[in-house]
């Protein structure tokens, strides 16, 4: 009866391929990134205003943009960090888009994914960006230090370099603690502890990992969602790590196609949206088990996975949905882009009653 509604509020088609859309913190504006057919990059800023979106800024750059984040910039600056097709990491001041305020040749190949932490009052510690690339490397950057990453995660000698499709920051609850999760095209999920500069955990989810997201970046690791090819997603309970079994997890089928993304609602960490290759949006609610950990036969603590319930399902497009972003300021407001060159502002109602 009280199921939340997913309603298409505004729809706008554009003349370039959309790869990413992000709400500008503390505003009714969002920025879209993509590439024009001639191989150049697009940055556009839109403002939502009385049932319509208006273009505020429209800039074309030499290289196509793949991904972007505001995660590492302060609320005052709201600088956008982008990764492009040529492997460049750039940071833009949205007021003056002529030249990036930071530019580094981060990778040899396309930057598939980017995440930021330490800015926006989210999480403790230094502002940091993490990028994952087709060249198999995951690099952590500090915007205060140009040209050199502060940390690099690369395959060991003789190991094949896998295409890195997903990166996510988490566990950033103190100045020193911080983790990076990275997902690869072969289904590997690796968790790097930046405090100890060591691999904390790794697993394989059998299919290429399209997206990783912690339910929150700035708390002790709680949950990690990994979406994969072949219409599956995994939810790991990250509170209790068993020495041999690792973290407890559940697997759920969804979308009947690739699950491209999972995004947690900023106002409620147990609700998240998954986006499918068939153009559908699924809203999920995670329910914790009665006890989140139990002792195994040898008396070692191990985690217990909860369950997920599908709250709402809606199909908006015939093409895969490439990005989705909840507005951090207005609950239920979100923007999503799909490969049909359309951006959509979506409203979810009744989220506060869940």
């Amino acid at each position, binding site marked *: *009866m009280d199921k939340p*509604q997913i*309603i298409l*509020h505004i729809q706008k088609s554009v003349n370039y391929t959309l790869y990413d859309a992000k709400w500008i913190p*503390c*505003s*009714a504006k969002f920025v879209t990134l993509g590439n024009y057919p001639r191989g150049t990059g697009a940055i556009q800023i839109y403002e*939502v*205003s*009385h*049932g319509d979106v208006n273009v505020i800024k429209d800039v074309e750059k030499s290289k196509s943009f793949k991904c972007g984040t505001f995660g590492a910039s*302060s*609320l*005052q600056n709201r600088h956008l960090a982008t990764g492009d097709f040529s492997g460049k990491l750039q940071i833009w001041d949205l007021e003056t888009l002529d030249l990036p305020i930071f530019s580094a040749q981060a990778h040899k190949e396309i930057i598939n994914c980017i995440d930021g932490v*330490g800015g926006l009052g989210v999480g403790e*510690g*230094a*502002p*940091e960006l993490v990028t994952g690339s087709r060249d198999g490397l995951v690099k*952590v950057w*500090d915007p*205060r*230090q*140009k040209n*050199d990453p*502060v*940390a*690099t995660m690369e395959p060991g000698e003789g190991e094949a370099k896998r295409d890195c499709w997903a990166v996510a920051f988490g566990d950033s609850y103190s*100045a*020193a603690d911080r983790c990076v999760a990275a997902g690869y095209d072969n289904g590997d999920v690796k968790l790097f502890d*930046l405090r100890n*500069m060591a691999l904390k955990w790794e697993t394989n989810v059998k299919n290429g990992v399209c997206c990783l997201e912690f339910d929150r970046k700035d708390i002790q690791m709680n949950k990690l969602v990994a979406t994969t090819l072949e219409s599956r997603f995994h939810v790991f309970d990250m509170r209790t790590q068993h020495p041999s079994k690792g973290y407890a997890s559940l697997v759920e089928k969804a979308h009947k196609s690739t699950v491209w993304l999972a995004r947690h609602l900023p106002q409620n960490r147990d609700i998240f949206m998954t986006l499918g290759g068939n153009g559908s949006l699924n809203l999920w609610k995670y329910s914790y088990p009665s006890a989140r950990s139990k002792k195994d036969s040898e008396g070692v603590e191990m985690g217990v996975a909860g369950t997920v319930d599908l709250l709402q399902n809606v199909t908006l497009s015939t093409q895969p949905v490439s990005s989705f972003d909840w507005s951090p*300021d*207005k609950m*239920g*407001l979100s923007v999503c882009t799909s490969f049909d060159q359309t951006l959509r502002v979506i*409203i979810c*109602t*009744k989220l506060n009653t869940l």
Partner: protein
Amino acid sequence: MPISEHEKKMLDLQTQVRQNQSELQDYLSELNHWENDIKKKEEQLKAVKSDKIQELPPVRNTIHKKKLKKKKKDKPADQNKPKKISGSDFRAWDKFDVDKALEEIDKNDKKEGTSSSDYETDEEWELERKKHLAGLEKDKGNEFLKNGDLDKAIEAYSKGMQYDPTNAILPANRAMALLKQQKFGAAELDSTISISLDPLYVKAYLRRATARSGMGKLTDAIADFKRVLDLEPTNKHAKTELERLEKEIDREKKTPLNTTLTEGQMGIVKPIYKPPEERSKVPLRLVPIEEIGLEPRHKISKMEQSETAKKIKDTEGEKFDKLLKTSQDTRTHDSSDKHEASQKAETEQHPHSSNATSGKSNHVAHTSDATQEDISLTDTVVNTVGKGDEFISSEQDVSAKWPGGDSHVGSGDSFNVPTTSFQFQKDFKLLKNKPESFVQYFQAISPVTYPQLFGQCLDAEILNTILKSLLNFSNHLNVSIYDVLLNLSQVKRFCMTAMFLSQKDKQVVRDLIKQLEESKKHPESHLTALRKKFDV
């Protein structure tokens, strides 16, 4: 009124749709409010941009030394120095003991843990890093230079200059490497850059001075050395170089005469030095050089000449003679000389003009002496042609005719007046079997230059040949035999050569002196002295 289940479901759905609709309407109106609110909030945010600067934790690599690269470790070393040394104060940097500073920092670290960077902005920090990189490149370059790998050293310095264009040491060091490669122009330029960056940098002046002296810019080089001595009065290298250069300049001033192309009437060409910018821009001319004495044609012609001489003797026909002479001329001289031969007929009226043309056809610049001789020779020819009976009267006359006949050939073969003994000996080897050519060649040499020309190598063979030719052609000489003999006797070690003269040779000398006696141009005492010198 009871309602069916189906109806109930429909009603529920209806209310839900209505509910949803109102929910959405509420949400949308709320959204509009929110849009306005957030706009205000955003403006506030922009207004208070210059907020308190948040204390941020240090960049990660300062915590995690494991992932640190070496240069990153060095950076805090520079930063944490109690007194910051400015980037342009190179002397202070030279004295700066990195190891000590690192130790100090290690101590500090133990005391108060990791300290964050002192630099307010990224730019400053970046600048400092680049300076450090430039220093590393300099060290690399110095190492290459030490090992003699000049190209790599230059490359390293160039890289360093890119990192830090304000560093005066890098261009100066590159100049050093360029100097070693003899690239003086580039070295001068680099030194100048270095000097412009640090006008008190002594090494740069030294290197520029060396480069300039290498390029022959002596006065500029001296100015630089003087500046070095101003800055560093004890610099030994500058002192010695300065003295050397000043001497060199003096020497140049003393011998400006050397720069004249020819000396006196002798047509002696001396080498001169001109700096490249003063040199003539006229393209060089190709001077055709023929070798004489190697062509068999001349031998044949000589044979013919002697044969014709005999024939002439036999026939004693005046007209026939004339005919023969012209035919011989056409046979012995090639087409270019034919022109001359035809001109010979005109020489009776215009001896000077003919001479002028012959002088032009010869590529050698004749000295006035030589021209004078040419005239006399052509006169002889003309005479002999004109008066056939005189020409055939004796063997002596026939041989006397040769220089006239061959004078054209000889001048066509173009021998320069020798200036060195080597040149003379080379020519002598070619000419010793051709007395007529040799006499002509020898006459062109001014007797005064003999002592200088022969030096210490007037050997008996040369002396014999000279004396014999003098005797044989005494009638046709335009130089005084006395002068020749006197000057020959003044050649170094002449007495040694004279001692080895055979009786036959001495007879030649006696004959020559007798001729002089008969001419009565010279006082007896001079001739006696000459006899003594020739040991006869």
